[in-house]
């Protein structure tokens, strides 16, 4: 069978001394949209206070919620069914949209001492503007991605399925370029 990122199991995809790229195991994810006035109620249903600052990320238990826009959140959870159920009960009084997008993306983990430098190959933003523990919807090598900074030199990158091969090829090329770089 043709080898693609879509068919690769979770685990290390490519690595050099400076940076390792792996595919993260799939995790249920939900796109949450609502008005600010509803956040209290939704926070209760989800079990985490919904952050309101764009880029802010909160984690509790097996659930993580990232604020992507003024009325948009990305929820990653081990208990997505419970969340969906709890939100559904609120729907009549707390209008919102909760769409299951668990299968839309592939998640890369990019980590190692050269991880930040690797990102500068295709990411026009200032890495210093993304603090540890935050996330952003941004562009990488002209594709829309969601990028989390989990540690100083550890990132997660959500990429739509059909862009995954292209971006992985780019990252792999970049790893080799960085490995050859003289210090």
């Amino acid at each position, binding site marked *: 069978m*043709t080898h693609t990122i879509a068919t690769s199991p979770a685990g290390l995809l490519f690595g050099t001394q400076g940076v390792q790229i792996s595919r993260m195991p799939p995790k249920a994810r939900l796109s949450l949209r609502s008005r600010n006035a509803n956040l209290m109620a939704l926070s209760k249903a989800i079990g985490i206070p919904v952050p309101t600052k764009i880029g802010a990320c909160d984690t509790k238990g097996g659930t993580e919620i990232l604020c992507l826009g003024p009325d948009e959140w990305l929820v990653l959870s081990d208990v997505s069914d419970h969340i969906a159920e709890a939100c559904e009960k609120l729907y009549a009084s707390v209008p919102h949209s909760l769409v299951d997008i668990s299968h839309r993306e592939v998640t890369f983990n990019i980590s190692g001492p050269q991880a930040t430098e690797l990102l*500068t190959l295709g990411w026009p933003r*200032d890495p210093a503007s993304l603090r540890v523990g935050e996330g952003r919807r941004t562009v990488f*090598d*002209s594709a829309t991605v969601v990028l989390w900074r989990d540690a100083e030199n550890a990132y997660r990158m959500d990429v739509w399925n059909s862009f995954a091969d292209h971006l992985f090829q780019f990252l792999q090329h970049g790893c080799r370029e960085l490995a050859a770089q003289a210090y």
Partner: protein
Amino acid sequence: MTTYRVAGKGRVDTGQPVTFTFDGKRFEGCAGDTVASALLANGVHLMGRSFKYHRPRGPVTAGSEEPNALIGTRRGAGQFEPNTRATVQEIWDGLETTSQNKFPNLKFDIGAINDFAYMLFSAGFYYKTFMWPKNFWHKVYEPFIRKAAGLGVSPTEEDPDTYASRNLHCDVLIVGAGPTGLAAARAAAVGGVNVVLIDENVECGGTLLSKPNAEINGMPSWDWLAAELVSLRSLGVKIMTRTTAIGYYHQNMIGMVEKLTDHLSDLPKDTPRERMWHVRAKQVILAQGALEKPLVFHGNDRPGVMLAGSAQTYLNRYGVLVGKRPVIITSHDSAWDAAFDLADAGADVRAIVDTRETVDEELQSQARMRGIGMKLSHTVTATSGRLRVSSIRVNPIDDGKAGDGLIIPCDALLMSGGWTPSLHLFSHTKGSLTWNEDQTTFLPKDTPEDCTIAGASRGLWGIENVLIDGASAGVKVAMALGKESQTRQHKVTHDRIGSGVSQIELPTDKSSGKAKAFVDFQNDVTAKDLRLAVREGMRSIEHVKRYTTNGMATDQGKMSNINGLNIAADALNKPQPQVGLTTFRPPYTPTTFGAFAGYHRGDHFEITRKTQIDSWAQENGAVFEPVGQWRRARYFPKRGEDMDTAVGRECRTTRAHVGIFDASTLGKIEVVGPDAVEFMNRMYTNPWTKLAAGRCRYGLLLGDDGFIRDDGVIGRMSQDCFHVTTTTGGAARVMNMMEDYLQTEWPDLDVWLTSTTENWSTIALNGPKAAKLLAPLVDGVELTEDAFPHMSCAECTVAGMPARLFRVSFTGEIGFEINVPAPMGRKLWETLWQAGQEHGITAYGTETMHVLRAEKGYIIVGQDTDGTVTPYDAGMGWAVAKTKKDFVGMRGLMRPDLVASNRRHLVGLLTEDGTKLEEGAQIVFDPHQAIPMTMVGHVTSSYHSDAMGRPIALALVECGQNRMGETVYIPMPDRTIAAKITSTVFFDPSNSRVKIPSGEML
């Protein structure tokens, strides 16, 4: 061969010889040499032929501003670069270089005949000469100009090198690592301010590299430089050499090109040749220095004639004497300094010729001390020597007129007309300039960017002055970033500040009409050409520039702009600012296409999106086609089949049995919220209120203008949730359009959009056996006409996978679209493929999909519509709600030209002789009318239809719907084809095939 290398001088490593070739001949240089310095060390000045007159030329500078010494460099197959500046290209063992613009060879060139015909090649020559006769243009003039216009030879092989790009954010970017930039970096690098210092040269130092005699704070300048670089590195300053800032863009974004491997004899693995840096700096300091100006006199382009400052650089930086018996011609003190350096290194300086009447007594006494003859108030009126200067003619100037000439033999002529501040990047910022009469030059004034310009690039002279200015620029930007900094003391001894006067053409006793006094060396523009342009009516420098091509070569007039302006201003008898200055544009120096392309070449040129089923298609021999960013299977040929045969088989099998098709690329948008139905009513032309949950409807989307933008089947999954599908290419556009309306027009609606295109894999099953194949695999829905009629949708499981099942048909057969979680797509496909074997299943691609839908008259947006087609034009008035208050495009549809009676309608066409029409072919009513005929429409879709046993076509024809049965004509190059207008529905007009026969049970 005589060597011009001076022992004990220069920064090259004489213990490390490097061998390279020039025009096939081997030369030896030292590690650290450029091609130019190595050839000069071997006594070679002749390095190329000029662009227009094919005049012999040698290097006139020692830097990136070089207009003459352009060479080809070659490393191996595909690794050839034309027009490389020999003054910049470092040598390495095995480098092959070639001269350009010569035939049969550099020393004897037939094209030099142009030089004798120079009277013909005056300014505006092309404009004037090639106007008549008109019919000569294509056959004679254009090929001639095209051939003449090229300099160097374009490589024909693919470039095997790789190129890279990177983003960089910093607090301070300093462009230029001469004394100004170094002092600025030292002052700015305080309190954690992150400073990047770049220089286009191999090493930092700028002018200091050519001035080893100066002492800074008691240290020889080179020692000071070395110590300063150590300090800067320890302060965390990022120093990048071989890096050129090519452009200054909005909001302090600077493009920089770093050359990584052009100086290496062995290419390291995985290392790009060049890297484009996209830098965003909070503060920028421009410290690009100044460029020396040539003097303009007859024969100033002969090999051996060079800028005095460059000769000083060749001596002090490369240890090369450009001549053993040089003469200096100058109007500026700095050339005296160069003369002294050369004399001290053993050159027999024959004379210093200065156009000025008086020169600083100190300089004169230094010249006397060295036994150098001086000719003040003198001019040069000619040079001679076939391929290199061998003598010059010097004349006294009396009252602005040249007296009798005296011949002085020499082997080099070093000139200086003063210095021009480098304002290129400052000019990119839209910075304003101010004319400085004393210095006869433009100086920088204001810029809208966070940009500070310092040192010689703002007209300051002398090392001490620019060190002080650089330091205060550094303090200023540190303060702007909220940091305290202090300037350090800079005391410089042996600092020759100097001054001079600006000159137009030097006075001559010869006919100025015959003088070849070059202003633009690279484009062969003379002073005479500029004066002619003014005589012929050019008033602005922008016109003079275009008429003469002065400053339009790849060096962008670094040498020629200011001399050109001074001469034009003189001819017009106006002050320079009234004549104007031409605009500098990026890139600062010529840049490779590779650097701009970066990683985006070959396989990585553009994103190719693939579905989860793409791999199956590839393994099963599909032929692909690009659709937007996606690649889609076009058809699945079996052994020996061409496209027509394969498509015919796929169509036939689908209509007879069942076909399977990957529809995953269709855009999908989940519309959710209490106001979802209201939103749908406003966006689409169709009514949605009465559509029940579990039912689908074909939706038509218009623009404000009333023209069709997109379409797709939309399922109401529940009261407040719609599963919208869009065309493959329109997905992102439709999503953006919807978000735009939602955010700007209807923020009151409680409805939200989520792109789910990639959350699902979508497989279409079509054909009389589709239900029979699918039914056993489905749980939760009974696939009968009653339980799940055409245009139904449901959530269920298919082959054990959670699915959204749609009963839709784009073929006219019984049809289903099965959506499953994206990663399960291939598994479902294989399951259906397996189960379909007993039903005679075929996989089909986009081509068969196109044919099957055309047989039913279903449109493809973007093929049968072109942005000027309304629903009524397309025969789809039925899709426009009649009683809705409003929808996007409703007002547009009322515009007079959209309700006019002569609009083009989409109709079917059947040719009378059974030939297949060409898509795009124009249609006329009367084939006998005079040419140009009145065209009344065009063919939008045309296929051979297996079901109809003949070709079919769709076309837009004026009033087509009122002309059913009439004949129209399609004139083709070889004949005219007659075709009958028909309905767009060719096959099964009663839609009987879409129904699952009752009693068909499983």
